[in-house]
């Protein structure tokens, strides 16, 4: 793509999200979402083939539906409160519709069906933008309307997402689908604590974005999209296998890596609010996620996966240089001792 045009489109995506995050008028927020959606379609379709077209179409249809539902909720809110300012949602119906719309944008169950299919159809870099940047805008709206969200619906969606994210990823070998299901599960964790302490949602979002960014960068560096091709990294860049191991264990939420921090804080917040069975259930279901991360580490770093003989003597002529990878890896694995610094997020 022409670099100038690509830059313009990318800036539009950024601008759309920024408009969503910084507006106080509901209409501007809707406009921001639409801008974001329209601009990201060409980015999703960077490679022009039927698979990408299908993925982009699915993405467009679901997100447009969600935007329309959001508009309806905004109008109902306008009807009941008479103003467009985003403070709290004045009508329970509007709140439920808005929550569903935002859940559709985020990919929470029962609206999660588009996430694996869209993520699989696009290139790794576009998938990266899809799973990290695109979550910021809906999450910021959820943060702002969090006092008026119906707790039952949100918690149901959150727990179901963790379940679906765990179970759905079990049968996958395609890395992008694995990351999609991991994203569904993490979104579940984030929305579970939204009503109790939105700060922790933001913390989880931050750490999730760091870890997903790291994972995608490691995949991009070895240009691997399946478990099989990832298992050849021991031959190309052996250090990457260790980094993949550490990052995957961090995503699974194993102490002492930084992926444990959001889970711990969320469990603490939920327990302080006297719900004890819920965090136990959520924590145990996160183990399903850990299972397929472990499977990935088994094939990549902890064993020498069976491969044909000419795979063992691969020549690589140009090594991709990924900027920011070392700091990302450090941040996504070693942040746990910095937990007391959470207070800066308030």
């Amino acid at each position, binding site marked *: 793509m022409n670099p100038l045009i690509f830059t313009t489109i990318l800036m539009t995506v950024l601008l759309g999200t920024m408009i969503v995050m910084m507006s106080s008028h509901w209409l501007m927020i809707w406009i921001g979402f639409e801008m974001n959606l329209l601009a990201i379609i060409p980015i999703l379709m960077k490679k022009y083939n039927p698979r990408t077209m299908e993925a982009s179409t699915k993405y467009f249809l679901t997100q447009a539906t969600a935007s329309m539902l959001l508009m309806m909720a905004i109008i109902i809110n306008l009807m009941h409160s008479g103003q467009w300012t985003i403070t709290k949602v004045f009508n329970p119906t509007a709140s439920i519709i808005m929550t569903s719309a935002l859940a559709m944008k985020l990919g929470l169950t029962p609206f999660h069906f588009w996430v694996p299919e869209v993520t699989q159809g696009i290139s790794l870099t576009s998938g990266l933008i899809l799973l990290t940047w695109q979550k910021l805008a809906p999450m910021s709206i959820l943060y702002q309307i969090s006092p008026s969200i119906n707790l039952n619906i949100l918690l149901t969606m959150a727990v179901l997402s963790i379940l679906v994210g765990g179970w759905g990823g079990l049968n996958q070998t395609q890395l992008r689908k694995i990351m999609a299901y991991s994203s569904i599960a993490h979104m579940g964790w984030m929305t579970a604590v939204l009503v109790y302490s939105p700060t922790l949602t933001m913390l989880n979002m931050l750490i999730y974005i760091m870890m997903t960014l790291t994972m995608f960068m490691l995949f991009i560096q070895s240009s691997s999209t399946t478990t099989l091709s990832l298992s050849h990294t021991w031959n190309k860049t052996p250090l990457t296998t260790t980094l993949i191991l550490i990052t995957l264990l961090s995503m699974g939420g194993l*102490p002492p890596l930084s992926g*444990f921090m959001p889970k711990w804080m969320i*469990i603490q917040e939920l*327990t302080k609010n006297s719900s*004890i069975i819920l965090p136990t259930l959520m924590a145990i279901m996160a*183990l399903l996620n*850990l*299972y397929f991360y472990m499977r990935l580490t*088994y094939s990549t770093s*902890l064993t020498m996966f069976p491969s044909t003989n000419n795979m063992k003597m691969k020549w690589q002529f140009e090594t991709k240089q990924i900027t920011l990878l070392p700091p990302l890896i450090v941040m996504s694995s070693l942040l746990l001792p910095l937990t007391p610094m959470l207070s800066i997020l308030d």
Partner: protein
Amino acid sequence: MLKIIIPTIMLMPLTWLSKKNMIWINTTTYSLLISLISLSLLNQPSNNSLNFSLMFFSDPLSAPLLVLTTWLLPLMLMASQHHLSKEPLIRKKLYITMLTMLQTFLIMTFTATELISFYILFEATLVPTLIIITRWGNQTERLNAGLYFLFYTLMGSLPLLVALISIQNLTGSLNFLLIQYWNQALPDSWSNIFLWLACMMAFMVKMPLYGLHLWLPKAHVEAPIAGSMVLAAILLKLGGYGMLRITTMLNPQTSFMAYPFLMLSLWGMIMTSSICLRQTDLKSLIAYSSVSHMALVIVAVLIQTPWSYMGATALMIAHGLTSSMLFCLANSNYERTHSRTMILARGLQTLLPLMAAWWLLASLTNLALPPSINLIGELFVVMSSFSWSNITIILMGANITITALYSLYMLITTQRGKYTHHVNSIKPSFTRENALMALHMTPLLLLSLNPKIILGFTY
């Protein structure tokens, strides 16, 4: 306590910066020096703990375990030299780094004051152990073993996290030193029963309790020698240590909640001992014997009398040294014949007489011969369980008999009789191996002269 932790962390740069012919020498020497530092902690002046800071403390229960942990690192390094000799340098350094990381986490776990910090480090010990088992194990079953190990432990310990946080909400602080003083009885309710279960299950899985022990034979058998040593000697004791710490907070539910676990342990120790009699795999035999000894520790901890606590602590230390030594001996067989089948390498006394002496000593301590500390541990546990309920003496007596039976079975099968014709070309024992066994046995024998340092805080 930092005087032990920082040198252990510094062992990692030492490994990476050492020259090729110095890595084993450097790491073994410095880890031996660190273990000398930890010996000073054994001087516990009173029943109260030695508090070094807000975060680390050492008390008559954790000091012997700490000394055992630091003592074991040089032994693990000595034991691993042979099977790593053919690996490239970076992999050797990675292996030593994993061991050192595990050591650091273990030291911090045993000396943690805050229970959540204990939990995080308890879980943190899983990661290096998993990597050691799955990366450096020898058979394809090691993958399954790693998964079983990880998931059994995590399933047990996630409810523990929730329970610890809810106790923190209830009492305000989880600092162990404070809890000893303002401990109140837990009110009687269903949710406190679940709290008791949540707190104890993590340690039950780790010990392991008889019904949840499935991960242990897999993990012990598939791990390389250092992995087996650290698993048997220390990681199981983490469960015992955790139980000893957390039962102080869980009265009075323990009086009735302990029954199912007591039954499982009493029955389980006989079952696992009996299975040992029918094992063909040497490492599997030692693994099941670990389950059986730890079942005794579970019984002791759940009875909660002063003598039983003394027995539990002594048994943990004694079993740590004995089990680790047995694994080293089994490994010396494995390195020569590359098979764990017992009958494949028998009659070794004729070929390796000094090693046979070590086998004899190890088997004798395993069956708790007087005056070894194994006997002190088992005797105290048997006596306190007898006073708790007279009938248990039958089961305990049966267990001691069966333990003697399988220990002698193992000894006689591997050492006595005519040697098989295909082992007459094995290499003689290395000095390193003899040193290893001596370093295991000497503390064991010397402790029988002054067992009060390992008798824990109820002495």
